[in-house]
């Protein structure tokens, strides 16, 4: 078996979310070093607060301040902190029922080791030095030996409330293309285009994805196609894409390589953009070190007859 191709793949996105009135008050409160809960219709105080009662679905708006001290209701010792987690040294995950609350908040506890943590232990919020209106405004909890702290007397109304959050997220993957696409990429490295033929309907897929979507069977027979092909359809791009060093207008086309059962797409150059036409015969142009053709240019052959590519539109 040939060596598996691999490449790093990073999926990175900011999670941007608007906040409702209760979440806004809670996160703004954290910025101001105040912890707010919400009172349910049956009188329980939920921390962190939600906008609808998880049992009755009643709309909840009655904000109540609770103390920054509380009791651990369950915990788990994390010996190997992972990226993004609140502390870089070993810590305990904890659910904490803050004094004045009836439910628990998930966060972390900075403690010297698992032997110093137990369910029922008392803890206190350690505020982050820089606070923006996010759950991470609580840096962590610390063990705490004192009496329940008194709430500050906040009304839950703040100047300049937080109305949204942006949570960056990044996930790292190792991309492996699988059997069919690996064979395609290996051939492309030699400037050859190799598709795969369906054993049932005989169609040649370029690039191959490993299966014929019509027949639902594996495509296995490798077939070299091109290098020349026919423009089956095209468009003229007039807006410059960011990070793309190509002058507009340019032509982007579907190109049916000779022998292929469907068209792939590529840029057409070496001809004025307004002279590109359906049926134009083209060939790939490679640049040094490239992993795929830079563009396609006219071969100078007569245009292909429409009937030769009408099924490939």
């Amino acid at each position, binding site marked *: 078996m040939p060596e598996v191709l691999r490449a790093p793949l990073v999926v990175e996105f900011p999670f941007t979310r608007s906040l409702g009135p209760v979440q806004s008050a809670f996160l703004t409160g954290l910025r101001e070093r105040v912890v707010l809960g919400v009172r349910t219709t049956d009188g329980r105080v939920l921390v962190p607060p939600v906008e609808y009662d998880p049992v009755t679905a009643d709309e909840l708006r009655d904000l109540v301040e609770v103390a920054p001290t509380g009791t651990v209701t369950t*915990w788990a010792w994390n010996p190997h902190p992972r*990226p993004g987690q609140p502390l870089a040294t070993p810590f305990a995950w904890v*659910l904490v029922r803050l004094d004045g609350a009836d439910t628990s908040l*998930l966060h972390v506890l900075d403690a010297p080791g698992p032997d110093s943590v137990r369910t029922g232990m008392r803890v206190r919020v350690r505020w982050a030095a820089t606070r923006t209106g996010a759950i991470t405004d609580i840096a962590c909890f610390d063990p705490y030996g004192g009496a329940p702290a008194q709430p500050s007397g906040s009304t839950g109304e703040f100047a300049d409330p937080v109305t949204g959050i942006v949570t960056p997220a990044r996930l790292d993957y190792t991309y492996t293309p699988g059997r069919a696409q690996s064979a395609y990429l290996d051939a492309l490295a030699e400037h050859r285009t190799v598709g795969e033929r369906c054993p049932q309907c005989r169609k040649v897929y370029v690039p191959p994805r490993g299966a014929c979507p019509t027949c639902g069977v594996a495509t296995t027979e490798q077939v070299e196609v091109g290098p020349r092909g026919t423009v089956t359809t095209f468009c003229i791009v007039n807006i410059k894409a960011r990070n793309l060093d190509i002058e507009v207008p340019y032509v982007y086309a579907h190109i049916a390589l000779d022998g292929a059962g469907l068209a792939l797409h590529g840029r057409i150059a070496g001809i004025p953009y307004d002279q590109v036409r359906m049926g134009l015969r083209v060939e790939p142009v490679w640049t040094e070190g490239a992993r795929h053709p830079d563009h396609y240019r006219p071969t100078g052959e007569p245009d292909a007859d429409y009937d030769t590519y009408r099924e490939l539109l």
Partner: protein
Amino acid sequence: MTREIAVVAFAQTDHRRSTDDLSEVEMLMPVLHEVLDRTGLRTADIGFTCSGSSDYLAGRAFSFTLALDGVGAWPPISESHVEMDGAWALYEAWTKLLTGDADTALVYAYGKSSPGSLRDVLTRQLDPYYVAPLWPDSVALAALQAQALIDAHETDEPALAAVAARSRATDNPHAQLRGPVPHGDYVVRPLRTGDCPPIGDGAAAVILAAGDRARELCERPAWIRGIDHRIEPHSLGVRDLTDSPSTRLAAEKAGAFERPVDTAELHAPFTAQEIVLRKALRLDDTVRVNPSGGALAANPVMAAGLIRLGEAAAAIHRGEADRALAHATSGPCLQQNLVAVLEGDPR
């Protein structure tokens, strides 16, 4: 009139730590062919197709559309997808068959966890306001639940290790982790490596059929007598982590408590979760629990729940079970739960 609907065939891959030599469709396709072969059906004979998967696992956007290539979805078929475990795809297909719109359904699910870091990937399913910014990984959340059970004296570490050992004593040839497995160090205390499911890639498929069509396609159909799914409040701190009211309610609605079952396939990725589920489902020692090894033997995410339904059905097909319960879960600490009751005709 309610239609009788049965699972008539089941197939799954050999689950592996990594399938980096295969794309998702290349991994899935043999399972689709196998499950169709068991019934003699071809894609064109299938009335409805439904799949479950998640793009986040392998980081490939719209990967389920590429997976459809393996079905043979052109010309267009009647098809749907859930970004959930395939057990919920089965639920959708069951509903479709109940309406009478189709007589047969193909349900499949696949997951390639190997390209990414599964523990971190799963944090992205959590509450984005209060929880996800802390990146609490899947083992950490399961460990909080395990500690709550230990505090409540419902289990202890040796009992959890026994769940792991019993699960992996399976003779299931598809299992990723079988036989004696060291219980290992703490991953997140109190959970050790042995308490956690293996991370791996795999796929599974079942075929559903209604009424006489089911009898034609399968010698002993596994009739779905009831199926239901329920969810817990989304905030972990609101829940009693030692219990699973949603599982109990789903089981009640599915008719699980009307008569005892002889076999149960539980989707408990972490040992402590089996303790919670046994209690919620009132399973005593007379019930064979997870003869397949369950998720502790193979946990291809997004397929592992469907596999529980498939394994329960296959036990009925083989005549090893007469009335089986299958359970699937999704989310942290048994957040969402599906329960199905399957029966074979009297022998």
